């Protein structure tokens, strides 16, 4: 029995070593390559398993001669916006869905949950049109109701509203934030709370909003922090939507900036060492976050208990 367990443990350790190596290999190769100079890379003919001493040079190039630092800031703002919208909007809505009596509960829940099934990437073509003029629906409304003709008769000009969110932080963040997975997670959490909570709060003289802010919010800290960080990372790694919604380099997040950097100069061999330094640069914040907070995230997303 002991002998057999040992064999199994050896196999299990082997599997884990293989898994860790598979995960680490690309990161290690990226790091090693980032230590090469461009000349070493071009003449050396590719991957070499040794550390050279040009890492800071490449890193300095990324810092001072590319737009990545400014774009890193864009990423921070966009990701914070995504995370905030996803958490705040879902929190208030889920509170209403769970603690209010309403015939609309089921319908609203269904409406929000559909967004989880169809990611933004599927509908970028038309989302682009909407974000290019977010007031378009109001124009339609005016058209359908005939109000525009009325206004035209009164003022002499036909109203046409326009407001473009392209290249703005909110324009990039808002469509990403539509995916309402949070509603699902918070709902599960709220339902696990004692049923008499709101009744007790009412006896203490607290109304629903008071109850939400003073009692529910502190109780929900664990799932809120976890989802916030998870959506922050989700906003950070988004690519297709920011790629088209933010076309000017000043508005692009770092991930898009890195991909653009990879083909800025088509007439020479790409500066792979610098690109690898750039890839590490745009990834360190979310990797650090998930490395340090993984226990909180796993616990808060309610993945462990079911």
């Amino acid at each position, binding site marked *: 029995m002991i002998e057999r367990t040992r064999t199994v443990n050896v196999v299990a350790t082997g599997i884990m070593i293989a898994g860790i190596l598979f995960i680490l290999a690309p990161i290690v190769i990226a790091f090693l390559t980032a230590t090469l100079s461009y000349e070493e890379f*071009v003449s050396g*003919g590719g991957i070499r398993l040794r550390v050279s001493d040009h890492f800071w040079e490449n890193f300095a190039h990324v810092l001072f001669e590319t737009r990545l630092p400014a774009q890193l800031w864009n990423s921070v703002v966009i990701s914070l916006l995504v995370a905030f919208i996803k958490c705040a909007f879902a929190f208030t809505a889920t509170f209403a869905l769970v603690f209010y009596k309403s015939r609309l509960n089921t319908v609203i829940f269904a409406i929000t949950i559909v967004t989880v099934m169809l990611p933004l990437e599927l509908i970028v073509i038309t989302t*682009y*049109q909407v974000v*290019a*003029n977010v*007031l*378009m629906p109001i124009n339609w409304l005016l058209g359908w109701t005939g109000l525009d003709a009325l206004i*035209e008769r009164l003022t002499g*000009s*036909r*109203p*046409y*509203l*326009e*407001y*473009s969110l*392209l290249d*703005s932080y909110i324009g990039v963040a808002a469509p990403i934030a539509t995916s309402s997975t949070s509603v699902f997670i918070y709902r599960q959490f709220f339902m696990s709370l004692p049923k008499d909570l709101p009744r007790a709060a009412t006896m203490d003289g607290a109304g629903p909003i008071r109850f939400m802010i003073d009692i529910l919010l502190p109780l929900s800290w664990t799932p809120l922090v976890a989802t916030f960080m998870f959506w922050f990372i989700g906003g950070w790694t988004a690519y297709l939507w920011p790629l*088209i919604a933010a*076309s*000017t*380099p000043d508005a*692009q997040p770092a991930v898009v900036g890195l991909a*653009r950097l990879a083909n*800025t*100069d*088509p*007439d*020479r*061999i790409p500066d792979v060492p610098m690109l690898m330094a750039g890839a590490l640069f745009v990834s360190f914040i979310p990797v650090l976050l998930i490395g340090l907070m993984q226990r909180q995230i796993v616990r808060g997303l309610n993945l462990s208990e079911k």
Partner: protein
Amino acid sequence: MSCITEAKKNPMEAEEKVMKSTLYAAGLAAAAFAASAAHSAEIEFWYGNTGAVEEAIQAQCAAFNAAQSEHVVSCVGQGGYEPAMQKAIAAYRSSQHPVLIQFFDAGTLDLMLSGAVRSVQDLMSDVDWDDYVVGARSFYETSTGELFSQPYNGSTLIFYANMDMLGDVGVSEIPQTYEDVVTVARKLKDNGHECPVLQRVHPWFSLEQFSARHGEAIASNNNGYGGLDAEFTFNTGLVATHLQNIQSWRDEGLFRLPTDVAGGKNAFVTGECAMVENSTAHYAAAFPAHGDAIAIGLPPIYDGYQRHNTLIGGGSIWAMQGHDDADYDAARAFLNFVRQNDQQIEFAGRTGYMPVTNSALAALLASDKSDQLEYATAAVGVGSLNQPGDENSRGIRLGFYVQFRDVYTEEVTKALNGEQDMQVALDNAAKRGDELLRRFEKTYQGVSLP
């Protein structure tokens, strides 16, 4: 339109100003704002380039704004030709579009039919448009010879050879014909050279520029200049022979594709390959690598063919519809400014593009700049654009052409990888291309080609 430019600058305030009408935009705004603005205006110019070219464009804008006080042009980079076009489409649909926009060669037809642009020749009838070099002019003019957009950043195809490598096998002249290229390539190969000729597959190299300089059509109706009912014909012409030649030359080890060599499409720069057809812009990377060993010449043609002009690549500037007179005054001033000889020469020097008018080229050649590295390709490149043209070397005027380029690349790549016969590949590409043309024709039903 000043309310629009303001709206872009300050989105927070813009909410109050968004109430405006399309009519108002077209006519009333002119009356309302023209009074205070006299004939000066602040307009936007959208462009797609990034990197060094973007810096040159910004410098040119700054120079324009400094040179006169009447108008202000703000140049807005959109991060690429495609995003710029996409933005312009969305902006036009909600009438927030700029007065001037730069766009790349392959989108010419889309813009011509859009109804969203007005021709520069109509905008400025007093300019000597015939000063533009043949290949540049014909690409952007209508079938009746009206120039639609002003050529701006122009490049074209030339031939590069590494004369050190060619010298090793006793060749001292850059080859002019494919027959010569192959002879030299055999010598190089026999001398142990791994990559005598680098050949790009992209249709700009293997189809468009090739057909133009041989005076061959790639589609009926003179490549679509004669009407939207054009059909692809390249699959039965010289292109088919050429691609089959490329395939057998590749099998023989004379030609290499970018996918065959470590340096990819830059294998000439890295010194792997001895000869290559490439854009004039490639010189900026090739010269630092090999210095005086580089020779450039007109791209090769087959023996027995009359040489025609090559096509212009790069971009041109378009004027969009729906703005008032003051805006167009500013646009005229800017277009005139960038056309000046010294501006063209300055721009070419900073970017590696070429001057696009004959007088600018003459001014360059007469100046002491002509032997500087930055201008080395100008004479050869413009020389290639100025070869006698015919109805098949004017340009490409085919619908959904960007999509067709992908189709062509896909099919030809499959053939070169041995997955299908080359003739089958070309027939497929032509057939799929025709489907795109028919759909394009249908989308623009009732619109006649200018």
